[in-house]
């Protein structure tokens, strides 16, 4: 960051003399620029848009990124100097045109000056570089973002002349563009909901368009809880389901594919089940029918009754099926938890319980497998797992109960044993005394 640090000194020196550097002052800025130039040499070696003839060591190039624009635009300069673009040698003029070596407004904002790009022009402006295979190749970046954008909901509205939709700069920032890996970036996983929520959480804007405030909905979902409360960066954000540059709501028939990217087992069972077969075209039950689209929630029994009733209101038998599956699952889970509680009791006795714990874990795994299996909405499919979990819980319970019972019995049996033992001693003594009585007269 030598460049950034050396910049104020140069500006001070250059600013007072309006660009006419006396030969005597040359060593200081020249030295500084040289150092900056050396650091940025790899970046400068690349072809630079809008600045076809970069000359870093020239005395007029005061700041490699922002040139002299920052003298009048300090806020933008500070933002821009931190951005990835500045690091890779993109200059102000690359987007805004004009001449960044001049301090005269007339010549700086002179020939080829674009000023602030209109919103509708932003995607094309970014695409001028980002769709160029040749320019993006060194960074191994995709070049299809602009094409994708044009297919997105945002892009299509923009094409129709609606400029109150997201363009590149709304999500990536204008001057302070950072790579998505940078935690400070707006496109960093943790920040994506807020970035999208800037518009989709603006209730007045969304009301005008007749859309729900999905940001708030998302923040109430299990996905948001996973992301923020547990810090799991693999939890899905907006872009996981809607796409990044091609952001659009998935078609009704595609919801299970979208959710199935992560919930593979659920999708497998869902596709094997009656709900999937019952779908006709785009109509029919899909993931969001029970779990909600943005407020994604685990299906709870109490919610379940409601969500089933959306379609099966008149069908008491089917409604009961859902309840039965839940009862089955919970009774199995209760058995397993009872076994776990019993293990704790056995620990206190103490009995050795390592392998009981292992079996309880196995039973819990079956229970976890039963949840995806429930998406097949068939009783016997779920029962395949719950039965095993329940029987393992039962086995562990009965084994521990047996052992605890044994422990209680032992001391009782010991008393009986002593009674028997004393009797035995008496019998043996009788034998011995009989033998002695008989033997003594023979003895010499």
């Amino acid at each position, binding site marked *: 960051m030598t460049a950034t640090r050396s910049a104020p000194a140069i500006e001070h020196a250059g600013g007072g003399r309006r660009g006419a550097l006396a030969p005597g002052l040359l060593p200081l800025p020249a030295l500084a620029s040289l150092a900056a130039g050396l650091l940025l040499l790899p970046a400068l070696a690349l072809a630079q848009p809008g600045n076809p003839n970069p000359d870093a060591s020239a005395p007029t190039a005061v700041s490699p990124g922002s040139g002299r624009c920052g003298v009048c635009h300090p806020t933008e300069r500070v933002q821009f100097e931190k951005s990835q673009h500045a690091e890779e040698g993109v200059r102000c003029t690359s987007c805004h045109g004009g001449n960044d070596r001049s301090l005269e407004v007339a010549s700086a904002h002179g020939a080829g000056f674009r000023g602030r790009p209109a919103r509708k022009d932003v995607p094309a402006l970014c695409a001028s570089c980002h769709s160029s295979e040749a320019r993006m190749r060194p960074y191994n970046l995709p070049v299809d973002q602009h094409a994708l954008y044009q297919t997105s909901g945002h892009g299509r509205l923009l094409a129709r002349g609606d400029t109150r939709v997201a363009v590149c700069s709304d999500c990536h920032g204008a001057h302070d563009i950072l790579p998505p890996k940078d935690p400070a970036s707006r496109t960093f996983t943790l920040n994506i909901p807020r970035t999208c929520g800037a518009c989709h959480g603006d209730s007045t804007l969304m009301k005008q368009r007749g859309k729900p405030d999905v940001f708030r909905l998302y923040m109430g979902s299990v996905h948001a809880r996973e992301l923020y409360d547990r810090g799991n960066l693999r939890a899905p954000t907006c872009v996981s389901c809607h796409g990044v540059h091609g952001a659009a709501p998935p078609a009704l028939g595609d919801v299970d594919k979208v959710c199935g990217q992560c919930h593979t087992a659920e999708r497998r069972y869902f596709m094997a089940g009656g709900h999937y077969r019952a779908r006709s075209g785009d109509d029919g039950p899909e993931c969001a029918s029970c779990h909600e689209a943005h407020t994604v929630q685990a299906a709870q029994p109490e919610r379940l009754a409601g969500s089933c009733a959306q379609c099966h209101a008149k069908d008491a038998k089917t409604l009961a099926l859902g309840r039965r599956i839940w009862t089955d699952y919970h009774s199995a889970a209760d058995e397993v938890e009872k076994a776990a509680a019993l293990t704790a009791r056995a620990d206190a006795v103490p009995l050795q319980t390592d392998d009981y714990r292992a079996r309880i874990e196995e039973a819990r795994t079956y229970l976890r497998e039963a949840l995806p299996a429930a998406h097949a909405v068939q009783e016997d499919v779920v029962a395949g797992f719950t039965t095993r979990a329940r029987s393992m819980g039962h086995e562990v319970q009965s084994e521990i109960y047996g052992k605890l019972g044994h422990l209680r019995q032992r001391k009782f049996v010991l008393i009986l044993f002593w009674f028997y033992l004393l009797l035995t001693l008496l019998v043996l003594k009788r034998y011995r005394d009989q033998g002695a009585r008989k*033997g003594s007269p023979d003895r010499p």
Partner: protein
Amino acid sequence: MSATRPPDPNGRASWVDWLERRINLSEIFSFLTHFGFVITPVDTSRPVREVLREVAETPVPKYASGPRVLGLLTAILFALEAVTGVLLAYYYKPTPEAAFESTRTIVRDLPAGWFLHQMHAWGAWLLAAVVVIRLLRLFWDGLYRAPREVLWWTAVAMVWLVLQLDFTGRLLTWDAHSYWATVRGMEVVFALPIAGPILAFLLGGRVVNDDVLIRFYALHVMVLPTFYAACVYFTFATLRRVGLSPAPEGRPEATTTFRDHLYTMLMLTVGLFGVLVTLATVLPFRFLSAADPYVTPGGVRPPWYMLAPYATLQWLPVPAWL
């Protein structure tokens, strides 16, 4: 107990006679005299019933009582250890992976497995106590002088063997306490100047791992019991040669019959069994968590017979001893 069965006075043919016509039972019985268990010469040309009656009526000193009983106890307890040990060995697997689990199966899951395990453990505890007390008694009564020096040597050897059996057997359960007690015990042994490296060589290294476990197992179930049995034989044989220890001074030597002696011994065994069962039920040895070579549990204490060296080593640095 057929040893005391007198001949049928009616002369009725029984299975004993039937067998006698084919095998010389007296000859087989006379083996016992070679081992020193029966202290009467046996005339092998006579039928076994007569021999048995004669043996049963042989007057013997009353040695199943008083301090003399200690020698008998070392043999009875050893027999008990052998029986329970063999039964335990049926299910025990001497590898670090399986040792703990197989012991747990025995102790927790097999019917009466806990009983055999605790009997073996408490029997070992009592045996160690008995051999040590016996040694003290022999010293107190001056029974180490000629002609009983062999008796003394075997008694010392038995103490040493029992302590080694205890030490090797302790590790086999491979639970946290037994493992760490062994590790600490081995550290003491390895600290010795000459014996340390030799033992390390014999036991397969200074680290208590699978090599050590299997060698301990071999020592525990084969080598040491064999030597112990030999010691028991030497004891009986020596007793036969030099006679029992003299009666306490000032008291006449009480005599009894061999039959009487056998009954007394049987009653002694039954009583001992009762004591062991009580101990095994009321005060079971703990067996909880599996040994983890990377976690040392607190409260690991050496067995009682090692407490004195342990205390010494705590206060005196090891080199001072050497």
